[in-house]
């Protein structure tokens, strides 16, 4: 028996009562396979803002999708182009804007967390060089979960 992918637990039965039944089994089979090969953590809709002239900080916005069945806690983020990266959350309460630092960014199992203006975001502090793009690495403890690179976008376009 040859398996289309190594991680699959399904095998194709030899006898099918109908074409539909065969298609259904195949669909389940392929779905099971494809979920196994999805990367555990994916970043999309990445926007890294240009630091305002004279200011030593910038914000990064993105969506993080956890494709696993376990909670992913991002506890550390580093950048080659910035001295420090912090996880922040802007809160609007009673018309007052507040900002708080988060110890970690929790991405629940099979869910997407969106980092957007006015909400959770990454604060990039003290650029170490002038660049057009920024690389970011996301860690859980010392385990590297994801590395990304995205170009810097001006805020006055």
């Amino acid at each position, binding site marked *: 028996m040859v398996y289309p992918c190594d991680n699959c637990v399904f095998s194709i039965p030899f006898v099918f009562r109908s074409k539909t039944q065969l298609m259904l089994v195949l669909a389940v089979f392929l779905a099971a396979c494809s979920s196994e090969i999805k990367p555990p953590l994916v970043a999309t809709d990445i926007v890294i803002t240009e630091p305002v*002239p004279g200011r030593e900080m910038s914000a990064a916005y993105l969506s993080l999708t956890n494709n696993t069945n376990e909670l992913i806690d991002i506890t550390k983020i580093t950048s080659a182009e910035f001295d420090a990266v912090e996880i922040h959350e802007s809160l609007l309460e009673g018309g*007052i804007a*507040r900002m708080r630092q988060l110890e970690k960014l929790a991405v629940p199992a099979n869910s997407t967390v969106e980092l957007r203006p006015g909400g959770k975001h990454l604060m990039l502090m003290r650029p170490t060089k002038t660049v057009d793009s920024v690389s970011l690495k996301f860690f859980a403890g010392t385990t590297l979960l994801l590395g990304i690179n995205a170009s810097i976008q001006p805020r006055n376009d």
Partner: protein
Amino acid sequence: MSRRNIFIAVLLGGAIAAGIVIATMSRAPVEPRSAFIIPLPRELPEFSLVDQFGEPVNADTFHGQWDLVFFGFTQCPDICPTTMQILAHAKRELIDAGSNTLPRIVLVSVDPERDTPEILGRYVDYFGEGNLGVGGELGEVRKLTAALGIYFEKAPIDGDNYGVDHSAAVLVINPHGEFSALFSAPHSVANYVHDLAIVMEHN
């Protein structure tokens, strides 16, 4: 029905239709989507601050043009640049639409200790021409914010570093130097483009 009666009926029908069209047109625009128009516009208090060029800023500075005033600080990475970006974008849309009454964008620093005129100048210039950055003595900023109901307070981050919690509203000052309307957060370009005409018309 005679030919004459038909003629009168058509004429009446046309007149009614035209009346409906005119009534509908004159009714719009009516309600602002986001802006709160203050029933009795308030004069600004006495205060003495400085702009990015080191020139004095007081109540007189707000006479002669429409102003959109935001209270923030330059070391704020999210809310403040996002709000400035929205105001600048809305102004550009008004320019593109051929509006002849363009508001000036004003940032009053709630962190005047760190926001020097030089820093404020570079900051507001980034978001477009003609913007005003206002700083000065903390006590003088308080005179202005207290009169306008704007909250701000230092919030320690770590070590000597701090942020500033602050009201996220944008105030509209009319050409008589009066506080005449308020936009509450969250802000949107579309709401400014839609509402500013109504706010200005209401004056």
